[in-house]
């Protein structure tokens, strides 16, 4: 199999003769890029509201009622628990069992199985993963969920690193979600002081004379300046010194951020040309975070990543520069920065319409929405995501997952996308109910194509579908190159 999606690009580019999107195309484009794709009837609904007005509402999610989702998530008790409560309830039993087993693997396994499901770490993980899937699939605050996905990935914390599985619930709920429409500096500062990040990138343990430069490097390389942002190894080491003492109060009891003056390196330092005389404390790190948040290289790095997520894998330089300018001019206002991307002519260029390959999470959720699927149990969906290659909270390296499609375009992952499509449309995916035959009055190939993709299939795809069964037709459409793109 050659580049599986390449052919379609050519076809779509050739078809792109009119200069502007129609209103219907604009509605579909907005639903695809600023959300996880349309549910049946969404395109018409957005057209009725007016595309621009719908987008404006999406940019202010606090004004969108989301009662149905709130109700849905009520049964996930861990979503309302503090770090302290989660650690006490779900970490303490496993820690106790470990102590008791004293390194005896067989005994550990046996004792672990005796812990009631209600108190197993697995429960925290499953509820966390499930809420992301349910929200993306069902929330009316679609753009909000897109941005949560974007920022959780930007400030990636890996579920599999030690205590982090107990800290991610609060990290997403208390650190990231409340700040995705605020100022970048606030988000950066909150992640810097979050137990989840302090633990993940080891800063909690870095101290005077016993430096750990993991976080100091990644905050510059990944969170702010970018790898070509102009810092040196010396800057990394010096910033690590600045950040000594930024730690967690009693991590194994679910404690919060603490600055420990005794762990702090109070000597003189210079980072990125900024000099700190001896005798400083927590304000040094806060000042550096302020400087990093407002640095032109940061503006460019964030603008590039946002454009990659919302517009195309290789966005035009002029667009990135303009968005970076907005970022700088608005003090890193994330709502205005995102709006700058959406308001650009590049965002509405016909060449990007249905041209970007969906990331695994986008693909899976958009397919569920397209068939109007109802998620009773999100765990099988989470497993499908794993097979397609990007389990939620499962990126081990601090880079998170790539926003460029080349990372997901491979034969094995494609097979798993196709198998997911067939199971979903066939109503054989456990935990998700769907009835594709009921989507349209007459479930022909053409009618189902419009219902599922919002448009026509290419002739090449159209003629491959010969099976008359609605479930088979829908499965093939969901697996088709057309549906792989947004």
């Amino acid at each position, binding site marked *: 199999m050659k580049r599986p999606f390449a052919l379609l690009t050519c076809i779509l580019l050739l078809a792109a003769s009119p200069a502007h999107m129609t209103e219907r195309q604009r509605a579909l484009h907005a639903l695809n890029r600023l959300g996880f794709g349309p549910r049946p009837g969404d395109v018409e609904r957005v057209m009725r509201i007016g595309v621009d007005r719908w987008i404006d509402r999406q940019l202010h999610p606090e004004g969108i009622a989301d009662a149905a989702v709130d109700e849905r998530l009520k049964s996930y008790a861990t979503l309302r628990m503090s770090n302290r409560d989660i650690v006490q309830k779900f970490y303490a039993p496993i820690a106790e069992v470990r102590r008791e087993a004293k390194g005896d693997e067989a005994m550990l396994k046996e004792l672990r199985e005796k812990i009631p499901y209600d108190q197993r770490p697995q429960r925290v993980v499953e509820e966390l993963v499930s809420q992301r899937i349910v929200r993306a699939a069902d929330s009316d605050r679609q753009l909000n969920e897109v941005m949560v996905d974007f920022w959780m990935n930007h400030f990636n914390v890996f579920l599999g690193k030690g205590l982090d599985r107990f800290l991610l619930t609060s990290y997403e709920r208390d650190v990231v979600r409340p700040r995705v429409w605020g100022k970048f500096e606030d988000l950066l500062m909150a992640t810097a002081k979050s137990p989840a990040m302090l633990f993940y990138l080891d800063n909690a*343990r870095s101290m005077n004379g016993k430096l750990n*430069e993991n976080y100091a490097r990644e905050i510059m390389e990944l969170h702010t300046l970018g790898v070509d942002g102009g810092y040196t190894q010396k800057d990394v080491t010096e910033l690590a010194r600045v950040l000594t003492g930024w730690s967690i109060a009693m991590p194994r009891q679910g404690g919060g951020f603490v600055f420990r003056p005794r762990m702090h390196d109070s000597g003189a330092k210079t980072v990125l040309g900024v000099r700190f005389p001896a005798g400083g404390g927590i304000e040094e790190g806060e000042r550096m975070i302020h400087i990093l948040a407002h640095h032109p290289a940061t503006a460019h790095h964030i603008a590039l990543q946002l454009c990659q997520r919302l517009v195309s894998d290789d966005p035009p330089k002029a667009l990135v520069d303009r968005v970076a300018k907005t970022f700088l001019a608005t003090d890193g206002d994330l709502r205005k920065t995102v709006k700058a991307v959406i308001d650009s002519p590049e965002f509405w260029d016909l060449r990007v319409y249905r041209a970007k390959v969906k990331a695994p999470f986008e693909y899976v959720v958009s397919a569920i929405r397209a068939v109007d699927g109802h998620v009773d149990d999100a765990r099988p969906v989470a497993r499908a995501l794993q097979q397609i*290659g990007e389990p939620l909270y499962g990126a*081990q390296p601090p880079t998170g997952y790539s926003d460029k499609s080349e990372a997901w*375009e491979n034969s*094995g992952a494609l097979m798993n996308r196709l*198998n997911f499509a067939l199971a979903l449309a066939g109503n054989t995916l456990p935990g998700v109910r769907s009835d594709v035959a009921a989507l349209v009055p007459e479930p022909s190939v053409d009618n189902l194509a419009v219902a599922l993709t919002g448009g026509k299939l290419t002739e090449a795809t159209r003629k*491959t579908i010969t*099976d008359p069964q609605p479930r088979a037709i829908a499965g093939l459409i969901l697996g088709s*190159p057309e549906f792989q793109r947004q």
Partner: protein
Amino acid sequence: MIDRRIFLKSSGMALVAGGLLPNVFVRMAGAATTGGKKVVVAIFQRGAVDGLNVVVPYGEAAYYAARPSIAIPRADVQDLDGFFGVHPALASLVPYFKEKSAAFVHAVGSPDATRSHFDAQDFMESGTPGVKTTEDGFLSRAIATKPAASPLRAVALGQAQPRILAGKANAVTIANINQFGVRGDAAVTSAFESMYGGFEAAKILKAANPAKLQPENGAVYPAAPLGNSLKQIAQLIKANVGLEVAFTDVGGWDTHAGEGGAQGQLANNLRNFGEAIAAFAKDLGSRMSDIVVVTMSEFGRTVRENGNRGTDHGHANVMMLLGGGIRGGKVHGKWPGLANLYENRDLAVTTDFRDVFAEVLVGQLGVTSLKAVFPGYTAKPVGIAPS
């Protein structure tokens, strides 16, 4: 554990089949072969493994001075040559070294100074350190210099296509060889085939059914991701599906804190790593004479331990080679010592990782144009896999 019978049997064959390389795999004359097909298996240790605790320069006092809490005590080091020894968790591989079937290259790495995991992995996989615009990977370029054979000639075991195999080789990425295929009826499968231009690789896999080929010679793979991947690579080799290059990766090496010494975090990872590779060699038995396993990692780690009994990002590292096409029983490369460190903190690079791969690719796969594989670079001899 090593199957003693194989080694006893093979030792008698040394003069017959040994040739220039006194390598146990070459001396083996068992019935099982790859049908003459040469295979390279590359394993990427993502996260930067601490090479100084993998192949320990136990003969150098500076090593112990730099690592008060995480050095591998002399008594625990498994000696290789009187100066270097391996971590005790790699004991399963020592017999292969003694039998001259395994070798190491120390102080090897990329000339680029980056200590970014992402950039360094990217450079190592593109094969063009310092050049970010390279679109394909060097293993793909290497295989693409040869005439197209099987659709399964280049396979990555894992979830995502690795950069190293991106490009014209049209490598196939497989997470699980048992599940590689569309689960639908004939009409559905053929429709998807038409949409995506054929599933040749899936068809061949289905016909060959490699999953039925269970480990041989009593090999037991650790029940962990690398063990599962290597077991499947072995199955592909045995099924004769035309595999020439296989790649897989394994994470968990970014030991910034609590690295441990003879025991602990790194030890546990290394044990899994060594036992998976040892199981692979045992499983394939005499077929190993046509196979070379190469390990790589983006950079090494600081010589001095950090404040958390771990190590930070460094520079030079160690590579391991195992198989029939190599000069085993030796730690190759020029040892720069720990007195003069790169940027006053890291082991200096004295061998470019491309030199090692150049010899393996020429010697093993018969690649004729190294210029296409490593553009703008002239490989220097290491003497590890002479062609």
